[in-house]
């Protein structure tokens, strides 16, 4: 057997084992976190090298093979998602070592308890994400999705306090409801077609009543977990009340997990079942999410809540992929635009939430109206927030710009210009809510409220993630070559004339 073929197993088991160790040895949590972050790099590089060099890889766990055992599978989309998780995950791990190194304000004991439980839960979440991106059958995906949801809920509850706990319960109920709906869809697909494998289902699923029922149940469940308007109500309190590193992984990675699965199902399994009207419905809900999320972000009184509502708005763009891919010849453009949007949003929102968490850590509050002149207290953090803002708005040369350009191209080349209006006006709204904060943060005033000392690692990780989101706009076509590896669609990246 090839020496690199066991890489997918390592990628799942290393964080899982370290999570259990971190639970047993609570004082060593931070060290185990760093061991995981460093230890994941070689198997990830090994897997990337294999997939880029030799095409998609499949690995039968324990040598049992598909019908009996569990197959792990990695193609271009999987490795791009794994890379995104690793970059944000390493950033969060380094940030958390600083964040949890000094006691919290006036609640030292609580803060230490948090840090003891943060590490096992975060490593479990990391394992669940890696398992999700490497799973090849819809039941395994259900298990990974549940692990992801349960560890994310527990992380939200870490902050203690009534608002965090109620947010966690809401999140848990929505997450379980979504999983149940998804599982019922899995049951229907299995009985209609006798297989659970994503690849085999893609060949046999047709527009039978069972197929329709399955796509409806699975899409409903997953959109609930991805917080698509109007099922977004649980997201802002959960993301805004969690501790800073937790908010970051929730917004940057966890919601992408369920959306990734939705992309796989729509473009690989239900290709024969999808109708334009359902795709348009998702697109319209996406438009509502962009408008509503941006409006709420404009009204938010707290910085973390502003960033959380911005996530609701940005997730709306992802759902435009479904109607845009229906246009003739624009399928790959829309699909790759969506994947690019996931990446750039993960880095930009990761940086924004880390920076907002640093503000809350430094000043003890994040009320926007009282954050006047903060750039002079924490210039590096605010610089990171500014770069992240550039990508969220979609200004060149950021990754957000490329993603929106691709979506715009798909809209105009596919003759669906009405979506383009939303994409452009969503960018204007994002500019409005980002600058609403900056108009206060950059104001010169005589005295600024005092700020506690901020560990260097917290400032630099936010900046690093922000630079990643900017770098996505500069590195050129390399990510497209990777996501093309056994992509469900093919075609030119930019179709037709330029928009």
């Amino acid at each position: 057997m090839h020496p690199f073929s066991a890489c997918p197993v390592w990628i799942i088991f290393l964080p899982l084992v370290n999570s259990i160790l971190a639970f047993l040895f609570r004082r060593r949590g931070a060290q185990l976190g760093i061991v995981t972050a460093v230890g994941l790099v070689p198997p990830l590089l090994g897997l990337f090298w294999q997939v880029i060099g030799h095409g998609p890889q499949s690995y039968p766990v324990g040598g049992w093979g598909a019908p009996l055992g569990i197959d792990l599978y990695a193609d271009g989309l999987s490795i791009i998602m794994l890379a995104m998780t690793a970059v944000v995950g390493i950033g969060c791990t380094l940030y958390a070592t600083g964040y949890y190194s000094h006691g919290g304000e006036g609640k030292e004991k609580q803060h230490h308890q948090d840090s003891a439980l943060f590490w096992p839960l975060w490593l479990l979440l990391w394992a669940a994400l890696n398992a999700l991106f490497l799973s090849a059958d819809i039941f395994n995906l259900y298990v990974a999705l549940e692990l992801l949801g349960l560890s994310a809920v527990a992380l939200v509850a870490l902050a203690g306090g009534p608002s965090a706990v109620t947010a966690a319960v809401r999140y848990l109920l929505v997450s379980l409801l979504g999983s149940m709906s998804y599982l019922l869809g899995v049951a229907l697909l299995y009985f209609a077609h006798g297989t659970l494998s994503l690849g085999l289902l893609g060949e046999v699923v047709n527009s039978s009543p069972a197929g329709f029922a399955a796509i409806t149940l699975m899409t409903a469940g997953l959109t609930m977990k991805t917080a698509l308007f109007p099922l977004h109500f649980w997201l802002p309190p959960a993301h805004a009340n969690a501790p800073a590193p937790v908010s970051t992984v929730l917004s940057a990675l966890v919601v992408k997990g369920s959306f990734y699965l939705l992309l796989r199902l729509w473009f690989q399994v239900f290709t024969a079942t999808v109708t334009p009207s359902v795709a348009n419905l998702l697109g319209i809900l996406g438009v509502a999410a962009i408008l509503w999320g941006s409006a709420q972000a404009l009204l938010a009184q707290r910085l973390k809540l502003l960033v959380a509502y911005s996530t609701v708005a940005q997730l709306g763009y992802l759902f435009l992929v479904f109607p845009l891919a229906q246009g003739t010849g624009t399928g790959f453009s829309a699909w790759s635009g969506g994947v690019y949007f996931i990446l750039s949003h993960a880095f930009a929102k990761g940086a924004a939430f880390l920076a907002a968490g640093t503000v809350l850590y430094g000043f003890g509050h994040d009320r926007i109206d009282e954050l006047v002149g903060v750039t002079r207290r924490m210039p590096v953090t605010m610089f990171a927030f500014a770069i992240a803002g550039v990508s969220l708005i979609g200004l060149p040369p950021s990754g957000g710009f490329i993603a929106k350009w691709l979506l715009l191209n798909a809209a105009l080349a596919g003759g669906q210009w009405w979506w383009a209006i939303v994409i452009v006006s969503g960018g204007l709204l994002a500019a409005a809510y980002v600058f609403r904060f900056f108009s206060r943060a950059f104001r010169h005033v005589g005295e600024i409220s005092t700020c506690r000392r901020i560990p260097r690692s917290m400032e630099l990780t936010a900046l690093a993630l922000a630079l990643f989101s900017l770098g996505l706009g500069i590195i050129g076509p390399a990510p497209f070559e990777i996501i093309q590896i056994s992509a469900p669609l093919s075609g030119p990246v930019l179709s037709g004339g330029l928009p």
Partner: protein
Amino acid sequence: MSVSVLYSLLGSTLFSLGLYGLAAYAQLLRKILAINIMGSGVFLILVALAYGPGENSPDPVPHAMVLTGLVVAVSATALALALACRVQETTGSAQLPEDESD
């Protein structure tokens, strides 16, 4: 075959009842029970449909799925109950507040 259809219909009814309970009741304990009823509905469908038409022995794959699903459901219920206790401790009531926390 007709028996398995009967049981899957029963499973769907349980699923819908659970969905109704989740939406209709404010108390957390009832909501958690409602989710469990939904889960039982899905598991019943899986077990019932494992007897395919004209087969004597049932398909083992759905049974393995139900076993895994039960483990997941138990852990999720435990987490939900622990969180419900925390809600009771911190807010003094085992219900979700109506207004969105801000």
